């Protein structure tokens, strides 16, 4: 017997508190109008995008139907490129493989990754005797504030500059004024030193091409470029749902992702397929020229393959994590990441049920979805989240789910 009553009450309280939080309210309204403006502007500038998005839907459908083959192919490609590829069945396996590569007493710089949040990667590596730094500015702020992200793209969306100054002043042990440029500068100085002295860089990937083993990572700050280029070891940790057959497919997915993820044109698109190498002296291939000498990819399953097998849910794996649906969600607009558990909003609720937390964590979230359907309108992948929420409700009511 699973009693959800207390969970609902607790969750309702947290939503109510969040909806009274002025910081969340202001930050999200600003973010929502900026999202709507940028996206409509860039769609006008690049009018081929919606058609391209439809093509990407097809690519994703094909990819999820042949996931096992793609995974095999991608792992072989990585190995051919002189990297090492791993498959992690679950959460624990993923962490252990990463720790096995890293060891103890190391310094690690990390790019932003929702998978990292799902696995509680930083905390795990720290508990095992490593020093880990988030290099995305938003995540760095949250690391210092010991908080969890409130949005998948702008994790610290709810923290205004005054509060950033406060936490920086305390951490850097010097007066940091509530001036955004100054705040960016202190972090830049601090992390620059970390990039070049750390032992390992960890990143995620937005899309992976199975034919070439190319990891595509989209970013604006340039932190991923440094974190994956400067240290001697680069580990990519990526969910298996990010696989697509070819490099060309990957480019299409990437373009649609950044367009709807409000990048317009992203500052950087990193494509990494193997360790750094040179043949400049006597044509002898030598690894670790300027970039990492060692390159590892951990493909993480953790419930994704099961989701791919479920006809009613496989479409949820098409999610590009553009964040568009969250901005259009009336519940998210007033509660931010409180409507979520690692993954947020309606789509995040589906992910919670299968990948991160399970049905018990998902149940209250499932019932706070309005099923209003505006997310479907926004979603470049037209993911029918309300239908999935309906299916989850049925499983919860009748207890027909696995723990």
């Amino acid at each position: 017997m699973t009693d959800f009553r207390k969970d609902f009450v607790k969750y309702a309280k947290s939503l109510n508190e969040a909806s009274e939080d002025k910081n969340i309210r202001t930050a999200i309204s600003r973010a929502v109008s900026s999202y709507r403006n940028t996206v409509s502007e860039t769609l006008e500038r690049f009018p081929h995008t919606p058609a391209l998005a439809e093509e990407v839907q097809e690519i994703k459908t094909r990819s999820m139907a042949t996931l096992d083959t793609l995974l095999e192919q991608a792992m072989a490609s990585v190995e051919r490129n002189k990297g090492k590829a791993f498959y992690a069945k679950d959460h624990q396996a993923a962490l252990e493989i990463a720790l096995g590569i890293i060891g103890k007493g190391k310094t690690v710089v990390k790019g932003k990754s929702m998978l990292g949040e799902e696995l509680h990667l930083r905390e795990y590596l720290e508990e095992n005797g490593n020093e880990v730094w988030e290099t995305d500015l938003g995540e760095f702020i949250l690391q210092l504030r010991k908080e969890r992200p409130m949005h998948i793209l702008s994790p610290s969306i709810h923290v205004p500059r005054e509060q950033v100054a406060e936490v920086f002043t305390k951490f850097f042990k010097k007066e940091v004024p509530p001036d955004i440029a100054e705040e960016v500068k202190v972090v830049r100085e601090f992390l620059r030193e970390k990039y070049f002295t750390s032992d390992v860089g960890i990143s995620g990937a937005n899309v992976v091409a199975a034919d070439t083993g190319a990891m595509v990572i989209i970013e604006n700050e340039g932190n991923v470029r440094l974190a994956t280029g400067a240290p001697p070891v680069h580990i990519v940790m990526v969910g298996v749902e990010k696989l697509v057959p070819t490099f060309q497919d990957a480019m299409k997915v990437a373009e649609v992702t950044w367009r709807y993820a409000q990048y317009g044109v992203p500052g950087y698109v990193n494509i990494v397929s193997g360790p750094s190498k040179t043949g400049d002296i006597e044509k002898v291939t030598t690894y670790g020229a300027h970039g990492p000498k060692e390159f590892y990819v951990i493909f993480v399953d953790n419930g994704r393959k099961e989701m791919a097998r479920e006809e009613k849910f496989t479409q949820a794996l098409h999610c590009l994590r553009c964040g568009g649906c969250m901005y259009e969600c009336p519940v998210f607009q007033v509660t931010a990441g409180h409507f979520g558990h690692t993954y947020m909003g309606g789509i995040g609720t589906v992910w919670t049920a299968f990948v991160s937390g399970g049905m018990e964590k998902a149940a209250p979230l499932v019932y706070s979805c309005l099923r209003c359907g505006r997310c479907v309108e926004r979603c470049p992948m037209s993911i029918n989240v309300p239908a999935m929420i309906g299916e989850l409700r049925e499983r919860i009511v009748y207890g027909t789910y696995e723990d």
Partner: protein
Amino acid sequence: METKMPMVLDVISENIIKHGSPLALKGSEVASWAKELNLPVKGDLLFYTGGEYQMLPFIDSLVKTITHLDQGSKVFSMMMGARNILNKTGISPEKMYASVLAKDKDRYNSVCFKAAKVLKELGYEFCYSGSEELYSGALLYELGYLKDMKDYAKRVVEVIKKSGAKTIVCLSPHAAEVFKFVYPKLIEGFDFEICTYIDLVWERRDKLAKISSPESVVIHDSCRLARELNIHQELRDILESVGAEVKEAQMNREWTSCCGGPIKILFPELSHVIGGRRVNELKDSGSSHILTSCPYCLSALEGGRAKGDSAVIEDLIEFLYRGVKA
């Protein structure tokens, strides 16, 4: 595995299954609006209320009960009746909702009356199942009680069949949605033509009398109507026909913002916050006369409106009825 859901979900689902109404309202009470109209019980076109507008004032007091009591607490479970008592007797709305104001009851009850009058004016002939009418079960579907919905739907269809109607006109878009998309999957040979109240008015909009309204109006598109049923231009056409000036909210038609209603029974405070924001969005259009076409939107927007806000919130039915009286 068995799961224990929040009490309010038990109450609502069991009320539907046992009493044909989410709040166990009596059939005679639900049908009281039609007394003077002497509508036939048989005909080609069935007027279907599902008891939804009639239920609105009671929902609000249910929600007040929920808001003030911890749903996990003993007191709450006593208020709501233990599950086994519920099985035998259901919840007595008379006792539970003693606080419902007569004026609210009258207002929401009269929505059905007004809707029927408007259709009559347009020359439609229709029948009504009266006190036998059962709620569509939309909430069973919404809340995940789909297995129960399967059995329940059979009973609803039996009542509908008695009317001999070929077409069902639904006042609530939620009823139209389940009849259109869910019933055909549950019940073999469910081949009624389903239309919304808006569809019928729209077809004969040329016959509508002009309504002299000094201020402009703004439409709150209901999610179900705009996105699932793809009805939004029709509302504008109808209002144009009666000579009303329509202002548009920034988020409208298929991009409309939800009123917050669907989570009202489980997350009442949050639902009010969302409703309040939507009211403000609508007022930003420049009009403070809000028209909607869904019972839950009506109730949620009313609930979300800030204290002292003088915005008028009406169902389109109520607005169109002005033309009937004139």
